[in-house]
């Protein structure tokens, strides 16, 4: 019955300070943009969805289950932090290491993920020698190779040029996951989502069509 993400009266407090306050929200939209001021709780909301942050009170569920990092993949803004293994191939394969696949399956799935992001020729390259755009593409391949139900991206186009940002944003739409949650200050990127939500001071201020919310947010910020 429950499809997609669902939060019921969720509050998150750090050292007694609530940073997400009594949020209730449910959505099965294919893509959800999360916008709002600095410190408004967007990243905390995003971390609730893969269980990296636990609610202080309230209930979160993702496709009917307690959130965990198996169902939900996460793409951070700083790709340097996400690189785990020395080479491109190994890094993507690392995400599959818990799945007990045989070598051929790993090969084919990693190959497909790298092809999707256009890094198929760099399989053996040293991760840290990639350009910033390529690193982010690699992080996306590593996040998507497990075919998560939910893909969460927190400022994925940070510091990328227009071509790379467009590439990432196009790819985010093509990843074989059921749902995408996209936290961003890039309003052009937010515009392309199906639904948008807007946080201010930990409160879910508004839910709606990206066009409407972005307009309201622009007014609010000026």
């Amino acid at each position, binding site marked *: 019955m429950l499809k997609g993400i669902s939060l019921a009266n969720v509050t998150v407090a750090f050292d007694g300070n609530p940073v997400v306050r009594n949020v209730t929200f449910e959505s099965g939209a294919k893509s959800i943009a999360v916008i709002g001021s600095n410190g408004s709780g967007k990243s905390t909301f995003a971390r609730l969805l893969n269980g*990296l942050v636990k609610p202080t009170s309230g209930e979160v569920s993702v496709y009917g289950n307690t959130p965990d990092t198996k169902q939900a993949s996460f793409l951070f803004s700083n790709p*340097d932090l996400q*690189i*785990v293994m020395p080479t491109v191939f190994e890094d993507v394969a690392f995400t599959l290491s*818990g799945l007990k696949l045989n070598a051929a399956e790993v090969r084919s799935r990693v190959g497909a993920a790298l092809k999707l992001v256009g890094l198929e020729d760099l399989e053996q390259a040293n991760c840290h020698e990639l350009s910033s755009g390529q690193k982010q593409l690699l992080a996306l391949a590593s996040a998507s190779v497990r075919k998560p139900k939910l893909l969460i991206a927190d400022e994925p186009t940070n510091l990328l040029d227009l071509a790379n940002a467009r590439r990432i944003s196009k790819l985010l739409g093509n990843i074989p996951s059921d749902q995408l949650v996209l936290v961003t200050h890039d309003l052009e990127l937010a515009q392309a989502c199906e639904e948008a939500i807007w946080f201010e001071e930990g409160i879910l201020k508004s839910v709606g069509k990206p066009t409407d919310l972005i307009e309201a947010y622009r007014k609010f910020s000026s």
Partner: protein
Amino acid sequence: MISLYQSGNSFLHRLSAGPKLAALFVVLAAIGLSTSHPVLAATSFLFTWLLYLLAGDSSNRFLLQVWRFSYIALFVFLPQLYFGGIERAFGFTLATLSALLLAALLSMTTRTIDLVAIMQKISRSKSFALIVTLSINSIALVSNLAKNIVEASAARGVKPNRIRQIVTLFVVSLKFADDYAESLAARGIRI
């Protein structure tokens, strides 16, 4: 940055760091001589307790500290018992404990910055001051980077590879340091 300092207003808190440090070294030397005399060592121990009480220790921090140092006490007591007998074991253990407790009392009643200020005064160098400031910043910074790395690898949904996490931490930290150097240079900082 949290430190071992416990705020308070006793005479030990008010005593300035320099003389306190000097007095401490004299007492520590005296304790060092008391090791082979269990009675003297016990006196040192009681003297230390008295100082804790004078420092306004209401919440039995003394006993807490004794408990925290109990590992070390054991590390002293057992070998001494084996090699030297019960009397010597008590003497060494009590003297060692007293020294540890006194040193801890210094940390509890003296602000870290006051002690750092003494070191800066002794070094009389601007670059020393800069390294101290940067080092203190870097403690919180690296711990944050470590937290982010652990989080990023947890987000992969696989059992983390600790050694690779350490590699990533070193890579990211050193890059940060080099970028930081550039921003110092850009601010016109000269050494």
